[in-house]
């Protein structure tokens, strides 16, 4: 063996082969094709088996088929009430990432209310109708089907607003537990959030919109919501898809969420007028002057156990719009849960299964037997 070091061959500078470049461009073309398909098609969502147990006009009440034996089920059923201007499928987005599926596996007798898409004949529907005409009928049917005189209710966004008013107006109807998710209730801070700023402006006239259009088109509401964070919603979301286009799990998640986002429905004109004039502009609920069918909504009368879930980065319902209720309600058992995330992300985002759902389930489980 010689002592001389073995000469090391110099690594030539890496110049991509033409074939490598071709395959890279080919991959980009394939990714673009996948991107295009995902953006323009609908994923299968809301697949957890359920049966329709009640219907009135466009509203439907579904009962999810239980997945655990009756003996292991929670005694008190849970009713989920989503907003009136979106489909409720976000609560059952896709297998393996569905709040409905999660709660079924933990033994809940689970019901979902779908308000449906209002037609021209529904343009005069108001929160009075949703709260005091539809919801009491739904509760009656739920009690009949479940055989239980008590129930829990989970309201999200405007569904939380309706649930809150119902809970205050019908405190003896058997509502034991109330869970509010990103509930827009207190509009005293006129500088909080884009919606409040826009709708509180004197030039913004909800009456003219409803007079001319009847129901407020879903596209108008959707564009308004997206304009709150225009870059993220019109560009960022699609860029996130492009960045993850080669990860099937991420693409599936994006596809499911986009399918739900694209499925926009109009909002009943009467309810829109009320939302802007009575809630956003005049803050009647918190002022104690909100009346539905002549009955004043007194939040002190809300006595159900209350879990108020607030999204810290919510740009649609800023936290301050949900916080105020805690000092007003008559509930003795009440708790606030602050979750990192946005209006929808706290329940449908990647972290929901680890952060929000277990907390809600744990809170409810302790109060459902």
């Amino acid at each position: 063996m010689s002592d001389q070091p073995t000469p090391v061959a110099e690594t030539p500078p890496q110049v991509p082969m033409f074939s490598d470049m071709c395959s890279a461009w080919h991959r980009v073309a394939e990714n673009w094709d996948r991107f295009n398909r995902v953006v323009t098609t609908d994923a299968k969502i809301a697949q957890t088996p359920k049966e329709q147990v009640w219907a009135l006009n466009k509203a439907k009440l579904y009962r999810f088929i239980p997945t655990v034996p009756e003996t292991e089920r929670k005694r008190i059923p849970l009713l989920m009430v989503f907003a009136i201007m979106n489909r409720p499928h976000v609560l059952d987005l896709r297998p393996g990432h569905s709040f409905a599926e999660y709660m079924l596996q933990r033994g809940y007798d689970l019901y979902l209310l779908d308000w449906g898409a209002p037609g021209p004949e529904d343009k005069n529907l108001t929160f009075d109708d949703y709260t005091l005409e539809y919801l009491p009928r739904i509760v009656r049917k739920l009690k009949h089907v479940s055989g239980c005189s008590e129930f829990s209710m989970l309201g999200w966004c405007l569904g939380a607003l309706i649930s809150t008013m119902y809970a205050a107006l019908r405190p003896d109807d058997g509502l034991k537990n109330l869970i509010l998710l990103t509930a827009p209730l207190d509009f005293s801070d006129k500088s909080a959030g884009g919606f409040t700023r826009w709708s509180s402006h004197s030039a913004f006239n909800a009456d003219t919109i409803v007079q001319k259009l009847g129901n407020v088109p879903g596209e108008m509401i959707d564009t308004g919501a997206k304009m709150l964070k225009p870059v993220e919603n019109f560009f960022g979301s699609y860029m996130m898809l492009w960045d993850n286009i080669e990860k099937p799990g991420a693409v599936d998640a994006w596809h499911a969420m986009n399918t739900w986002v694209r499925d926009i429905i109009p909002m009943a004109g009467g309810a829109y007028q009320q939302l802007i004039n009575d809630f956003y502009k005049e803050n009647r609920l918190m002022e104690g002057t909100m009346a539905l069918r002549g009955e004043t909504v007194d939040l002190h009368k809300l006595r159900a156990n209350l879990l108020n879930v607030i999204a810290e980065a919510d740009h649609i319902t800023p936290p301050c719009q949900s916080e105020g209720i805690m000092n007003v309600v008559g509930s003795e058992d009440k708790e606030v849960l602050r979750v990192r995330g946005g209006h929808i992300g706290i329940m449908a985002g990647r972290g929901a299964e680890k952060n929000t759902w277990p907390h809600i389930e744990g809170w409810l489980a302790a109060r459902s037997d």
Partner: protein
Amino acid sequence: MTNPEEQFNPLDPTGILKSVRDANMDAWAKMMVNLVQSEAYAESTAAMLDAWLTSSGPFQKAVESSMSQTMAGLNLPTRDDMTRIAERLTNIEMRLDDIEAKLDESLQPPKPGDQGS
């Protein structure tokens, strides 16, 4: 910061676009949020919406009126007719729901302790 040497990789043709985007997106997003939260934006949006609704109103009314006349001439129901029927159907549904509620109540087995009549 992006290393200048990594700015263009022929094996990642979209890489340079991503670098540009990553460098500017946050600032752009913040600027736009500030813009849409401003008083000027709220005022101009409301004014534009109002102008659009006001200007399209007469045209919409004319179309609706001529459509109604055409449908009536053809002995076909107009939108208003269909709306009225749908409202009546909803009222009937509510009556049926009330009847169902009463039936459910009367068919319910008596609770323990209840005296049968």
